[in-house]
């Protein structure tokens, strides 16, 4: 009389299988991947020069004695951009929402309604495998760039607590990114075409996640609202933790808040999926 463990075993083995397949699928394109990763750092070169020019102008004028903008020095801003690349490596989900919408539109989603596999779980495992493969290959280029730019990290390695919080925020950033985008993909149950909506989301996310510039540069009145949005967890928040821009005594509270957002998006995604499936009528063969 042990149907429960055997079912669990079956589940684990099938999840492992999905993970392995996705991992192998991803490693096929490793050469292109590594080169692409290195190229992605190129825009940072222009950013370094732009910010140098900005700080140069500020210092020559001489009325900003601290030499900081929004609490960031020149070196910290460069370090910030590098760290957001790391944050985005966790939280960006290329093709997730559009993939879900496409599966809905083309009727492929029926597969998950008939087979004993949960769509969201399947996609999450797939994504973890893809990310895992990505890190294996991207670790080289990332390490190289961070090593070459080590002098921008003026305060050296942060404390262990900070590193732990940083890792936690990266992992939660990944999960928030996943469930947020999956929820957007679920809109496909209601509107068949979501690509333009996605583009608008991408625009806002680029700006409001802190990928474009540190959010603390925003005028105070706007910053106040933006920091309430969950988008900051995708890029700004992990980098700010690493650079010690989040005060130690607020760190726990901020991380708890992030966890709340995560729970919110998991629930939202689940509800949207179950509601969507009820609405769904299978188009296409």
């Amino acid at each position, binding site marked *: 009389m042990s149907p429960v463990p055997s079912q669990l075993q079956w589940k684990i083995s099938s999840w492992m299988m999905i993970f392995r397949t996705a991992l192998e699928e991803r490693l096929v394109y490793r050469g292109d991947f590594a080169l692409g990763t290195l*190229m992605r750092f190129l825009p940072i070169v222009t950013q370094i020069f732009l910010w140098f*020019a900005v700080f140069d102008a500020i210092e020559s004028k001489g009325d900003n004695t601290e030499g900081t903008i929004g609490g960031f020095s020149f070196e910290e801003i460069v370090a910030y951009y590098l760290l957001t690349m790391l944050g985005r490596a966790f939280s960006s989900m290329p093709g997730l929402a559009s993939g879900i919408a496409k599966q809905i539109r083309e009727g492929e989603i029926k597969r998950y309604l008939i087979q004993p596999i949960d769509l969201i779980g399947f996609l999450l495992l797939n994504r973890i495998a893809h990310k895992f493969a990505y890190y294996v290959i991207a670790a080289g280029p990332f390490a190289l760039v961070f090593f070459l730019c080590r002098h921008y990290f003026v305060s050296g390695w942060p404390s262990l607590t900070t590193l732990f919080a940083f890792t936690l925020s990266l992992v939660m950033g990944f999960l928030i990114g996943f469930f947020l985008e999956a929820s957007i993909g679920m809109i496909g149950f209601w509107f068949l075409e979501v690509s333009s909506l996605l583009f608008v989301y991408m625009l806002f996310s680029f700006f409001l996640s802190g990928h474009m510039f540190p959010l603390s540069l925003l005028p105070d009145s706007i910053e106040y609202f933006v920091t309430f949005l969950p988008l900051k967890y995708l890029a700004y928040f992990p980098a700010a933790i690493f650079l010690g821009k989040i005060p130690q005594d607020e760190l726990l509270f901020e991380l708890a808040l992030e966890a709340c957002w995560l729970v919110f998006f998991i629930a939202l995604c689940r509800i949207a999926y179950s509601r969507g499936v009820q609405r769904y009528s299978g188009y296409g063969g």
Partner: protein
Amino acid sequence: MEYNDTAGTVGEEIQTMSLKDPHPNYLKVFLTFAKNSLIRDMTFRTNFVLQCVSSVGWTLMNVGFYLILFQYTDTIGAESGWDRDKFFLFLATTWFINSIVQAFFMPNAEEFSELIRTGGLDFALLKPIDTQFLISFRKVDWSSLSNFGAGIVIAIISLHNLAHRENTPMIPGWHEIALYLIFVILGIVIMYSLMICLSATSVWLGRNQTLYNFWFYITNFSRYPMEMYDRGWGRPLYGIFTFIIPVLLVVNVPARILARPIDPRTTGEWFFVAWAFVAACGSVIFSRWIFHRALSSYRSASS
């Protein structure tokens, strides 16, 4: 995004035209291409409007970023003269050039590597018209021109601010405006040549997704005042992107002519103006040579 392929009818049109006259009327052919693309765009009107809105949205976000930047600083670079209004003129120039490149050349360059991969280039080679012309102007992405409009708005606002400010108001003269227009066109020519060179390499490489990323990363350098790179380890980049792949001249030369960041102008500035002219001519010749080299080593992929 799905649309009907009207290339067939265009081909027929070219052929009937060329039967009457062995030298096709390039302007007429181009207008036909442009008309067909517009018809295609207007078939999916909501999609078209959304594309316009999203590209203008991207522009607004950039404007927002630079407005924030100028909250903290008066100029970009000490003594460079690029204050807020002048820098926004620079940005407007960037948008003029980029929107034209994206509207007219980008969709075609994207298709070119696809034509090579699928062997569809055979049909282009058979047409009685210059192949480079046919490849470069077949499609027009009208929605990208919305950023041209955004550029005009930005330019008008900054010119207005420059003319009405208290210390050193500035109104560009007619000869400056004329020179500006000429060098915007030459900038577009440089960008076009670069794009032709990059897409021609797909004949040798088969598929070049990374090269298109490369295009974005290279042109990324052209978006800022060039003197910014002229220090420390930026010097090699400055040299390469000014004298070998002249992308730094594309926006910088016309923008400097109009915005006059350093007044009076230096002789160095005139040197770059002259060099931009030479570079534009040189890059057209070079890209045409590369394109023909690529065509001669093309082996059809179909059958």
